């Protein structure tokens, strides 16, 4: 009798273990195996089709050529860094010699004058997009909240937003360039004009989704919550702080994520067109060079641009999870 019970329990235990393992395996397949399979199939088709496309610059680059370019880009980065080091050493020596000759000489260390490597371009682009995006957020979120709270203002401003929202960055770019070069005049500029142009173009394009989403989020707060605030006679600031912001955070963040995606895409286009430093310029320069490596290098940049875009989106998602009180509202 007792032995059967043991048997049964042990059976259930193994069964439980089995289901547990199965579930684990399932999640593992879902999380790892399937993407790997998908990517492998993609790589396979990529290399097959790449071989059969012949451009005037040679074959379309397959995965192998792109990987090779990644390593060559990295090597280039390393050599450039060594050259930079030598540059600084030479400069120090030169300054020291000048100081020896003229005791009043105030030495100045100048930044390296060599080329920007691929890695440098990535960082330039990241900094530009972040600055542009933050500036947009700084304008869009307060404006959105105000518009959400004030129906009349919303009605007044909404048409403008609807008109500007679909405008391509490429249309803004010439205007921004001209305005920046007319207004931003200084002998010792804090940031370069090209940075400002790219950044403002990004700002102009990522503004609208944020404004719209914030407005929507704020105006759709449940009437119960609004009534609570009214009963407690909260001041406007406290009302925004305690009721409006927490309630509309999910919508605001959805807008921010959308905007960041737009911002990243806009930035690459702006850099390409205006020849401003960054990944977009890298792509354009390589296209202009027309060397036999150019296409593979462009493809490498495409992969990096996509990957960074993906990481930026994930980062925004994590941030959103962290700040929302309602975790279920966060969708991947």
């Amino acid at each position: 009798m007792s032995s059967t019970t043991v048997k049964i329990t042990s059976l259930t235990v193994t069964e439980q273990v089995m289901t547990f393992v199965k579930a684990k395996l399932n999640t593992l397949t879902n999380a790892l195996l399937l993407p790997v399979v998908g990517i492998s199939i993609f790589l396979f088709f990529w290399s097959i089709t790449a071989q059969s496309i012949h451009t005037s610059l040679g074959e379309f680059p397959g995965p192998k050529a792109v990987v090779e370019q990644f390593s060559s880009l990295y090597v280039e980065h390393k050599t450039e860094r060594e050259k930079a080091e030598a540059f600084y050493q030479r400069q120090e020596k030169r300054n020291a010699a000048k100081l020896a000759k003229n005791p009043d000489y105030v030495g100045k260390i100048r930044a390296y004058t060599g080329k920007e490597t691929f890695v440098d371009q990535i960082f330039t682009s990241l900094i530009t997009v972040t600055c542009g995006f933050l500036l947009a957020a700084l304008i869009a979120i307060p404006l959105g909240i105000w518009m959400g709270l004030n129906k009349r203002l919303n009605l007044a401003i909404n048409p403008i937003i609807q008109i500007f929202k679909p405008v391509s960055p490429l249309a803004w770019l010439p205007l921004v360039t001209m305005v920046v070069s007319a207004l931003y005049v200084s002998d010792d500029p804090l940031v370069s004009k090209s940075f400002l142009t790219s950044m403002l173009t990004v700002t102009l394009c990522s503004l609208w989704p944020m404004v719209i989403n914030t407005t929507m989020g704020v105006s759709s707060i449940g009437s119960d919550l609004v009534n609570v605030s009214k009963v407690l006679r909260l001041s406007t600031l406290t009302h925004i702080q305690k009721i409006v912001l927490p309630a509309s955070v999910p919508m605001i963040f959805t807008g921010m994520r959308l905007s960041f995606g737009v911002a990243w895409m806009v930035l690459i286009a702006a850099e390409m067109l205006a020849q401003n430093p960054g990944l977009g310029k890298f792509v354009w320069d390589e296209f202009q060079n027309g060397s036999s490596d150019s296409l593979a290098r462009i493809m490498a940049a495409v992969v990096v641009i996509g990957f960074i875009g993906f990481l930026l989106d994930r980062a925004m998602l994590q941030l959103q999870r962290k700040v929302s009180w309602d975790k279920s509202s966060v969708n991947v």
Partner: protein
Amino acid sequence: MNWKKSLTNTLKKAVLSSAVLLLFTNIAYSESLGEPEKEELKFGFIKLTDMAPIAIAYENGYFEDEGLYVTIEAQANWKVLLNGVIDGSLDGAHMLAGQPIAATMGYGTKADIITPFSMDLNGNAITVSNKTWQKMKPNIPKMADGRPVHPIKADSLKPVIEALKSEGKPFKMGMVFPVSTHNYELRYWLAAGGIHPGYYAPHKGDSSGTIDAQALLSVTPPPQMPSTMEAGTIHGYCVGEPWNQQAVFKNIGVPVVTDYEIWKDNPEKVFGITAAFAEKYPNTTVRLTRALIRAAKWLDDNNNANRPAAVKILSQSNYVGADYDVIANSMTGTFEYEKGDKRDVPDFNVFFRYNATYPYYSDAIWYLTQMRRWGQISTDKSDQWYKDLASKVYRPDIYVKAAQSLIDDKLISASEFPDFANETGFKAPQKHFIDDIVYDGNQPNAYLEKFSIGLKKGDKL
């Protein structure tokens, strides 16, 4: 792994110690000239092999020898580059010889731009698409081995254009800028073959340059020439290297004539700065000219011995960026016409020999005569007017200062420069043009009378 490390270490030490040596002996830094007033400079260029003196002056440390910290930046097209120099975002740039002249004259954007340094001679070619070449080829005389006789004249192109015209189709060619050498060379070649390239009429607001034209010329930035021709938008183009050799490598076109054959040792690019810059920073101007002269000399030293090294530098993506082989094809003394038809053109790119770097007034005046010939200068001007404008833009005085200090520092011997004491700035009458017309810079108006196609005295559109 270890030996590798020690090797790099020794190398590093060697480089460092030589740098230190250079510093203490101070062979390159001229004391007599005085400190540069502006040390951080930014120079622009267009991706063409004739920007080489700037790249070499940077890579060989000649700018640093002068105490200049130079950043070099590729520009999208000639207009962007010129505007950069005018608005001060660039301190100087690799320019078309016609740009400083036209800017000073006020054709296009008006600005006082000068040049203390002429960057090179020759270096351009005219390329036509494969289709056009097939139709041209039967009209060209052949040598015993079946290859076409050079120079190929535009006479062989004329029937092709007429055939197109009878079908109601225009013949289009690309050049890089309205006041570019390429525009004038292409026009010269076409007109020498009896094809009218069209007039400009700026006083009527016509800047397209297609009045009376049998061949329509339009502007395309150099690096985009091959792809524009591949797309069928133009039937051919005139551009600098490597974009003609690129067409051969890509199998999309055939270079038919080099500018060396159109006008032997013609002046090509110049280094342009604003007159205000030269006035405000005289030491910097002389010093950067010194660095550029040294770079040009290095490029031509020992019968082009340094060219392969130069090509390697130019093929870096931040300079010209095309493949080594494409750039080397023309930079190392050969030029490939039709695929496989590679001929020796030792002077295809001249950077220093034949006093290539000296800014001759007569060179500036030749450009002015062509501007008048095609209507960019809409009214008659006196010979004196030509001379005055040339001396305003071309500044041998700065060049001589730089060259003299190089002679004094024993970096370059005086025999490699013109005899400054007797130099007038006018070359002796030049004969080697494709149509055998002689050019004398002292008589621009008389020169204009010699052409059968082109505006002459009293002509006004």
